């Protein structure tokens, strides 16, 4: 047992949650060791709802305009939302993490599963706000059974999550039967060295008898965590029941939950097979539609991708277990590979349980690098998690480095002897272990694409224009793993996303490219208004997006707007009112999100981004950068030149055709931005107008003051 000193202690009164809220937040300052309970005001609930809304509100009032990720006033906020923790409706256990990102310098937000969020909420807190920096390694312990928050010394040698989480669960649980009542937030050794880092949120898997890990993946939360010298956050809460969230209408909540459980029971095997393979079911679909990123997003389809198809992962995932990351999630998508034995690194030869891989990890650590062996992807997934590395940024960053190696920008001399040819899994393993050790070229790759572009231009004389075209980042964040070249709407979905190019604001490729349901700029702009707002709502409530449209009612296709899954939207309205007692309809649902979305936009402006220039994609996300890319899909691009631009491709060189296509596509993108800004109530420069903020009721003095600087 590790010897721990109590550095600070804060006893608090235990009170039941009422209608989804505790009406207080927990503030911890690691510099001063202050621990406080702070009230949740009516304004916070009315304007910011909860979850990401509370996070951003708390952060706004704690950071300065000049705050960067490693300044002591930067915060890690973790909030839960009024619907979080109910055990009745699938996908209700999410925490939302925000911080000023070391990759983007603006707020990043991550939606993460595991038991920490619900247990912290039921321990008495609607959000946890951690500010300051500790001088020594610490653990924060929230004892939701006794009503005590402690800052404890953490002389633990272990940092890596798959070991640390289990040790802390064993240490803080009353006995082995109590392991399920403890959850840990931790990062890993790599988060001390590279910003493409993440946090792991644990849940104790009673059947496997291991700590499972879910990731707050994007934007470098792990590096902020370790910079504050936090080894872990630990929560203990053993009082969970089916009504701990104290809803006003348990009956409706239960009935709506059972309805969705039954829909999943009947439909999942025929639809997405989430219970069998999780989101990995997407791999073969994306490959079929030329959307699976391959060789740093050059191509979307390769025969070799069958090595990463869902049936390969199904062989590895243990089947038939209720793999929900929170109780009551019958969609059960968080699959795991049990008894996996890594072939490299410090845990080589040891049996481990690996969470996932999910689709994004297969794309990032597999196809994008031309690694076609499913077991290698599982191993990269394992090391990313335990070292505290984001699999998406890791994949996109490695893919960028490999393409630079292909062009001779990098060579063995510059990589410290590593051959970064496509598909060289051994070199990719070495990169990840270097990140874990804080040495070698791995640390350069771990800086992310944005910083690599600067380094390669400055140190190696690489052409900055080429690096800009092939470096798959915007705002400093790496793209997630879908090809957007042939979907203008998705180019917007990615690049207009407030935090950076992540697919959680909008995924419109099928609506746009495959089904042609949003042909005009106005149609696309409407979709790029509605879906980001609708999806923002999950983060306000503490919900997961997947049970919205990864299972659909049997008659969904016959509804007016199948892409919105109207019956499930109504479910959300019903459970919101059932828990909070507050009225809601589908218009007000969107407005709840719109208030917070615009607040986040202004927050980005305040921190120095949020400008139109920050919403520009690298050309690789829009069209073919290289001749080989054009020629690989020549028929498609020639046809587009003829049909869309009225240009006869005959007799023109590939370079000429590429230039014409590029001019057209870049212009189309700018027209899209005009249309989207207009629909969102923003100026041509992307600034929310005062009138629009007033119409939303978000003309708060501090918000207006920032906006006025830009008008």
């Amino acid at each position, binding site marked *: 047992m590790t010897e721990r000193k109590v550095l600070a202690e804060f006893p608090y009164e235990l009170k039941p949650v009422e209608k989804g809220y505790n009406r207080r937040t927990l503030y911890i300052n690691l510099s001063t060791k202050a621990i406080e309970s702070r009230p949740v005001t009516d304004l916070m609930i009315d304007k910011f709802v909860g979850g990401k809304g509370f996070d951003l509100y708390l952060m706004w009032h704690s950071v300065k305009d000049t705050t960067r990720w490693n300044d002591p006033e930067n915060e890690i906020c973790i909030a839960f939302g009024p619907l979080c923790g109910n055990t009745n409706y699938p996908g209700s256990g999410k925490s939302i993490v925000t911080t000023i990102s070391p990759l983007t310098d603006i707020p990043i937000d991550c939606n993460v599963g595991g038991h920490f969020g619900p247990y912290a909420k039921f321990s008495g807190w609607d959000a946890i706000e951690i500010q300051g920096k500790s001088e020594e390694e610490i653990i924060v312990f929230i004892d939701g059974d006794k009503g005590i928050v402690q800052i404890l010394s953490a002389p633990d040698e272990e940092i890596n999550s798959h070991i640390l989480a289990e040790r802390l669960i064993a240490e803080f649980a009353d006995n082995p039967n109590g392991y*399920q009542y403890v959850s840990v937030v931790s990062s890993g050794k790599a988060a001390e060295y590279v910003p493409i880092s993440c946090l792991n949120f644990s849940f104790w898997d*009673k*059947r496997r008898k291991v700590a499972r890990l879910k990731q707050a993946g994007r934007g470098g939360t792990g590096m902020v965590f370790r910079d504050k010298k936090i080894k872990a956050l630990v929560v203990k809460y053993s009082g969970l029941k*089916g009504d701990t969230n104290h809803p006003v209408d348990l009956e409706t909540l*239960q009935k709506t939950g*059972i309805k969705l459980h039954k829909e999943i*029971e009947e439909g999942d095997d025929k639809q997405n097979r989430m219970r069998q393979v999780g989101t990995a079911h997407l791999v073969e679909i994306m490959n079929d539609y030329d959307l699976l990123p391959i060789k740093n997003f050059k191509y979307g389809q390769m025969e070799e991708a069958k090595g990463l198809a869902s049936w390969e992962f199904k062989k590895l995932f243990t089947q038939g277990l*209720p793999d929900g990351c929170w*109780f*009551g999630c019958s969609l059960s998508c968080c699959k795991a590979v049990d008894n996996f034995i890594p072939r490299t690194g410090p845990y080589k030869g040891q049996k481990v349980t690996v969470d996932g891989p999910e689709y994004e990890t297969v794309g990032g650590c597999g196809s994008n690098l031309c690694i076609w062996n499913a077991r290698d992807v599982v191993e990269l997934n394992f090391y990313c998690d335990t070292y505290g590395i984001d699999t998406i940024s890791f994949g996109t960053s490695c893919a960028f480095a490999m393409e630079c190696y292909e062009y001779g920008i990098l060579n063995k001399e510059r990589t410290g002897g590593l051959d970064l040819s496509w598909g060289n899994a051994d070199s990719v393993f070495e990169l990840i272990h270097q990140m874990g050790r804080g040495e070698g070229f791995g640390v350069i790759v771990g800086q992310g694409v944005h910083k690599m572009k600067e380094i390669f231009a400055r140190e190696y004389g690489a052409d900055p224009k080429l690096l800009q075209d092939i470096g798959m980042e915007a705002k400093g964040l790496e793209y997630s793993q879908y090809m957007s070249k042939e979907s203008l709407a998705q180019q917007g979905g990615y690049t207009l996303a407030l935090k950076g190019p992540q697919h959680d604001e909008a995924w419109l490729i099928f609506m746009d490219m495959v089904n042609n349901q949003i042909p005009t700029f106005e149609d696309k702009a409407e979709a790029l208004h509605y879906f980001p707002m609708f999806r923002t709502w999950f983060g306000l409530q503490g919900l997961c997006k997947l049970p919205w449209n990864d299972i659909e009612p049997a008659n969904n296709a016959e509804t007016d707007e199948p892409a919105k899954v109207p019956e499930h939207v109504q479910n959300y309205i019903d459970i919101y009112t059932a828990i909070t007692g507050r009225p809601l309809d589908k218009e007000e649902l969107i407005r709840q999100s719109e208030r917070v979305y615009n607040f986040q936009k202004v927050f980005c402006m305040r921190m120095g981004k949020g400008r139109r220039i920050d919403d520009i994609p690298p050309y690789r996300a829009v069209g073919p950068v290289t001749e080989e890319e054009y020629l690989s899909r020549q028929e498609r691009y020639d046809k587009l030149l003829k049909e869309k631009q009225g240009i006869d491709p005959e007799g023109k060189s590939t370079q000429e055709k590429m230039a014409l296509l590029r001019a057209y596509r870049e212009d189309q993108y700018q027209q899209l931005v005009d249309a989207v800004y207009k629909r969102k109530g923003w100026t041509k420069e992307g600034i929310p107008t005062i009138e629009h903020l007033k119409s939303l009721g978000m003309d708060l003095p501090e918000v207006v003051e920032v906006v006025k600087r830009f008008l």
Partner: protein
Amino acid sequence: MKKFLNTYDEDCIACHACEISCARIYFKVDDLERSRIRIEEREKSAHIVACNQCETCVQVCPTLALTVNAQGVVLVNNRLCVGCYMCIAACPNESMFRYLGGIIPIKCIACGLCLDSCPTEAIRIEEKQEN
């Protein structure tokens, strides 16, 4: 061998006496929603719904609150149950129930205390081979 309540729809006259008996024994009320056995009145005949101890629900319970005793009967551990009702949706013969105001699901535990209430012997405690 596995103990279970076998049902004979063809003998059932839908008098609901078994439901009343069950609700009185376990909840001390006459509310049929509290019964662990349910009689559905269909157009041509009645249908008796009671757990056949198939254990499908045991597999889906996320907290291991559903266990099988030495006689093969599935029991709900109230201390561990978090009321998610995944068992209700997974039950192939819809014999795991919720009731108004309740949190823990209820099911037949083959206690046999309802047998005497049935005038036609449409319900019988029997044994069968393990699943």
